[in-house]
């Protein structure tokens, strides 16, 4: 058995596989399949200061090798999360990451403060959600705004702070640098790429929100490229995600520069994907005589 443990900003994960925010709820439903301790961690459904109902349905559409979603951050609010979900979650033997989204700086700061006094292990700033009208992705698409929000939240955040980046930008490396320069402990990427599908008979967008976020295997090559670009630009660790579907994809993303991984969409076709991917990584490491998964991180040999 190879060593699958990874360390992201001082937080120890028993393996690099983290369930991606929004695809795993608060873990309860998937604990029916396997103990949550099999996972490196769980990035919980994005929470906001108050309960949110989310967008009207339909919220999902299929695309070639991918899906669009526009849930719109439906969630019970940060207080409910801390009181009702976290006590159970923090006993599962896996790293718990709170994923937070707000409309204003104050929203983010308030949540960071509350969560800093809770049992969560890390806080992930979701400044890249494309499916809400105010806030969300707006904070995530320029270097200035990313620097500003990171700076604003940093003093309130006593937990390791992850900034989650949007791929809907011209230069993700500079944006990652802005987050790093204002004190982010890690970055995670990529969130979904904005997309659209239209029903040709009704001429209506399939998703009621008109646009949705593209995730799944289709975006994998874009995610690998962005993780690699960001790895070249920052020193803080990267949690890589976007379309990882097989253990090979996982290895590829680690080689590109990721220290840990999140997987989302693949869970919908195979709830057991994290287990299978961990097994696959382990077999790959053993076969190649590599002792620890962290040796893969950033080991890409680019062509000069």
């Amino acid at each position, binding site marked *: 058995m190879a060593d699958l443990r990874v360390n992201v900003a001082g937080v120890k994960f028993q393996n690099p596989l983290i369930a991606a925010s*929004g*695809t*795993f*709820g608060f873990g*309860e*439903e*998937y604990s*029916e*399949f396997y103990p949550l301790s099999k996972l490196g961690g769980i990035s919980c*459904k994005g929470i906001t200061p108050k309960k949110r*109902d*989310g*967008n*009207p*349905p*339909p*919220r*999902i*559409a*299929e*695309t070639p*090798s*991918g*899906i669009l*979603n526009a*849930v719109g951050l*439906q969630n019970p609010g940060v207080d409910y999360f801390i009181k009702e979900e976290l006590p159970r979650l923090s006993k599962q033997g896996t790293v718990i990451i709170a994923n937070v989204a707000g409309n204003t700086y104050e929203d983010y700061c308030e949540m960071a403060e509350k969560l800093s006094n809770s049992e969560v292990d890390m806080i992930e700033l979701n400044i890249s959600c494309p499916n809400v009208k105010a806030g969300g992705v707006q904070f995530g698409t320029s270097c200035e705004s990313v620097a500003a929000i990171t700076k604003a939240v940093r003093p309130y955040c006593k937990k390791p702070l992850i900034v989650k980046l949007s791929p809907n930008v011209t230069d993700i490396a500079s944006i990652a640098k802005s987050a790093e320069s204002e004190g982010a402990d890690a970055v995670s990427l990529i969130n979904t790429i904005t997309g659209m599908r239209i029903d040709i008979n009704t001429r209506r967008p399939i998703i009621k929100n008109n646009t949705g976020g593209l995730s*799944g*295997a289709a975006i994998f090559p874009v995610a690998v490229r962005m993780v690699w670009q960001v790895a070249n630009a920052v020193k803080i660790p990267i949690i890589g995600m976007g379309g990882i579907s097989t253990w090979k994809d996982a290895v590829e993303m680690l080689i590109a520069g990721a220290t840990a991984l999140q997987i989302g*969409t693949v*869970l*919908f*076709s*195979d*709830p*057991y994907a994290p287990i299978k991917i961990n097994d696959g990584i382990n077999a790959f490491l053993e076969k190649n005589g590599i002792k620890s998964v962290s040796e893969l991180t950033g080991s890409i040999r680019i062509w000069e």
Partner: protein
Amino acid sequence: MKYDTALCRLVEKKEIAKGFFDFRVQNTDLMNNALPGQFVHILVPGKTLRRPISICDVENGCMRLVFEIRGEGTDILSQMKVGDDLDILGPLGTGFKIEKGKKYAFVGGGIGTPPLLYAAKQADTAIAVLGFRSSDAIILKEDFEKACSKVYLTTDDGSAGHHGFVTDPLSEIIGEVDEVCACGPTPMLKAIALIAQKNAKPCQISMEERMGCGVGACLVCACKTKINNVEGYSHVCKAGPVFRAEEVVF
């Protein structure tokens, strides 16, 4: 376990009307827990999302799944061959609550009829009201005749049974029954819910929404509901697909 994934062998396959398929798949573990009105989530080769299909019946060691070709996924599914394995996640969701000693009306429209069959078989007394586009789209009539004391048939074009909608026979018989269970297109469900309400009869309806995870984690399968006077979105895959009619905000 409440639900799990499993490979289920396709042991029998029939086209019961043009574009409507009747699959029997084998997997005792999954079936043993299955309740009427629940569904399974089927992996379709080449597709990212599973497809939700209601459990039509559990019988002779087989689970029966009846579906119509509606798009690419159901088309690929219809091409599976006897002997192939289907990757199924289930049984999922909250189904119909069928109580002892009660008399039920099962009202189904088109491809909304399959989930009612298993429920009808569990009811002590059952009347079925089944509506179809036309005579060549009629499915499961004999099955309901076996399971119910009476079956009313309607077609939109009058090519078989009563010419009109399921609401016509339902309005006539609603006085006789204790409760209504319905599945079909949303406008039909809305009309049925209204009839039930007017007649002060409890009514359960099965809703449809596009799904991701199927287990309640991803929140994409939202259905507007009003439960205990609070409006919000409930999840068709976990709180549903069957809701009490008065809970659904149409």
